[in-house]
């Protein structure tokens, strides 16, 4: 492997813009720069292209194009959905979410009082040691006072999948609105919204090989909606502000590619992930898999290497241009390790030394072999230095 080659295994953080996506976007910067809202055909043709992108995204999600609103990111989609549901149900004062949500949902739910001026009771569902929620406990939490349920489809740190279709069904049976942050799930697992009881779904472009700065909110036809920003009539008045045209075109193309590569994601990429995971767990003693092994994304693995610290591991990996993430305290800038691992009850001995590897269709077997070759020595070297390492 070339010494300067980057081995990118941090695709849950962000992804490379696919070459086909970049190519599709390019004309919209330089040649087709018209405003989609303009009355002239120079701008109008851009509006047509934006609508085509909407169709492409609808095809991946199994919904109508008209049910999609373009936003700037996953976070905006999450906020818009949750706050819309609260506005639509002014008499309801209860929200259900989980303890392992992305900060986009977690921090919003913890600050609903400040954001809305109204007090809400928020149930944050516990997770088990393998990161799963207790379905019965979830159903019990649904009350007449519940305005919205917001539960992520796939966890960004562990890849664990929640039974979102069943959870949405249980909410629908009780006339409760259901939102899912599907930022990590879209493009990796099949989703067919027209068959599901999901009312709102958030996705983000840069997690599936489209650029950063574009997101989508799916709003089921007939569901309550309140715009997050006020201004022009773009997106039929649902999201003011001139469209991020090139990125939207890119996202459309990325969704088309994701649909075409979903099979590869769940076969070849999954096999690479399994090879990496099994290799690390067998060659490195005292290494532990975090999260349920069955119900999870095909591209993610989260492994704790006991008695060593995540930032130190990442910086040694960095010397070989291997990119991944850690749930350690030091990498977050706070002094406490990942809220996801802590919610799962992962002990401190393991939480500080957790590494998340997240693959994409652009990873190769050669790269995985390279990582498997380098990791044991990195962990071994740090353990030799650790005052807690009890030896093998």
């Amino acid at each position: 492997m070339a010494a300067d080659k980057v081995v990118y295994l941090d695709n849950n953080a962000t992804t490379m813009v696919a070459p086909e996506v970049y190519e599709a976007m390019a004309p919209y910067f330089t040649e087709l720069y018209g405003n989609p809202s303009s009355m002239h055909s120079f701008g109008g043709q851009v509006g047509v292209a934006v609508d085509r992108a909407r169709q492409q995204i609808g095809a991946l999600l199994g919904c109508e194009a008209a049910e999609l609103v373009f936003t700037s990111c996953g976070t905006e989609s999450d906020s818009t959905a949750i706050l819309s549901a609260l506005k639509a149900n002014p008499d309801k004062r209860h929200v259900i979410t989980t303890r392992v949500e992305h900060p986009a949902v977690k921090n919003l739910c913890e600050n609903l009082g400040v954001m809305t001026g109204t007090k809400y009771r928020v149930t944050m569902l516990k997770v088990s040691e393998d990161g799963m929620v207790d379905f019965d406990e979830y159903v019990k939490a649904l009350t007449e006072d519940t305005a919205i349920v917001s539960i992520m489809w796939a966890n960004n740190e562990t890849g664990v999948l929640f039974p979102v279709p069943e959870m949405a069904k249980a909410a629908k049976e009780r006339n409760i609105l259901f939102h899912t942050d599907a930022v990590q799930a879209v493009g990796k697992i099949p989703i067919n919204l027209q068959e599901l009881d999901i009312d709102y779904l958030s996705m983000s472009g840069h997690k599936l090989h489209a650029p950063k700065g574009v997101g989508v909110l799916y709003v089921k036809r007939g569901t309550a909606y309140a715009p997050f920003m006020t201004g022009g009539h773009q997106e039929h008045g649902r999201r003011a502000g001139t469209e991020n045209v090139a990125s939207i075109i890119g996202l459309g193309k990325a969704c088309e590619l994701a649909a075409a590569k979903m099979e590869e994601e769940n076969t070849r990429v999954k096999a690479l992930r399994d090879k990496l995971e099994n290799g690390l767990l067998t060659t490195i003693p005292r290494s532990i898999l975090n999260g349920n092994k069955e119900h999870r994304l095909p591209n993610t693995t989260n492994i704790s290497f006991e008695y060593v610290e995540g930032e130190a591991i990442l910086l040694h990996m960095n010397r070989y241009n291997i990119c991944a993430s850690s749930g350690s305290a030091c990498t977050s800038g706070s002094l406490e390790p990942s809220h996801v691992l802590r919610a799962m009850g992962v002990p401190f001995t393991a939480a500080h030394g957790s590494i998340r590897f997240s693959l994409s269709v652009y990873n190769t077997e050669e790269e995985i072999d390279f990582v498997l070759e380098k990791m044991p020595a990195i962990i071994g070297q740090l353990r030799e230095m650790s005052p807690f390492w009890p030896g093998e």
Partner: protein
Amino acid sequence: MWLYTDTVTEHFQNPRNVGEVENADGVGDVGSLACGDALKLTLKIEDDRIVDAKFKTFGCASAIASSSALTEMIKGMEIAEAEKITNEDIADFLGGLPKEKMHCSVMGREALEAAIADYRGEKLPSAEGEVVCECFGVTDVEISRAIKESSLRSLEEITNFTKAGGGCGKCEDKLEALLRQTISEGLQMVEIDKKPTRMTTLQKIKKIEDVLEREVRPGLRLDGGDIELIDVDGDFVIVSMRGQCTSCAKSETTIKELVEKKLREQVLETLIVEEEK
């Protein structure tokens, strides 16, 4: 990503003096797994001079680099001289550390102090202090010293340097009192910036339990009752009345007039107390 100096990176990648000195004359063991970093420093001392120093560190790149730097600095030094080394000296040796990582250099200095005290058979002054931050086991002596030595002026800086207050946050009031006291002792009156901090559920629970125990339970117990904290969900505090209180017609009033009022005054003014149904 942290912006580390080349010296930090170099010491992290090629740490000097890793290991343990055999038959060490002084051992300094500081930090813990739970805290996220720990350092064991072992010294060989002859005629009050450090002839060898080795370390074992669990922690991030700057913790490892600080440990490596420390051993390089003290090898060959007289004990009397080594005693004067501050955490700032360690950070300077490395060309500086990101402010959030200053506690790594403090850990180095603490280990050195502990090793010297061990050599002399003395007790550490910091160990005699009172633990203020229970999450990271930091004493008032250590905190006051860091405030003085590094001219700390805010709670955030105290956390950056000592980790105190970086966990549950329950000790914030004590930290602020220590900060005021230490600064006024130094006769420098400086405006302390205290940002209104958002509490985590854990912090809320701890504070609420504290207030219930101190301000609520004694009164209820006089009447043969008690109160138990069941859950804290955002602003909602769910409690259950026990003993005589369960049958008391005034329990609703007690909850609203006494418990909620006290909690709003002392924990968070947006709290709503409800009885478990």
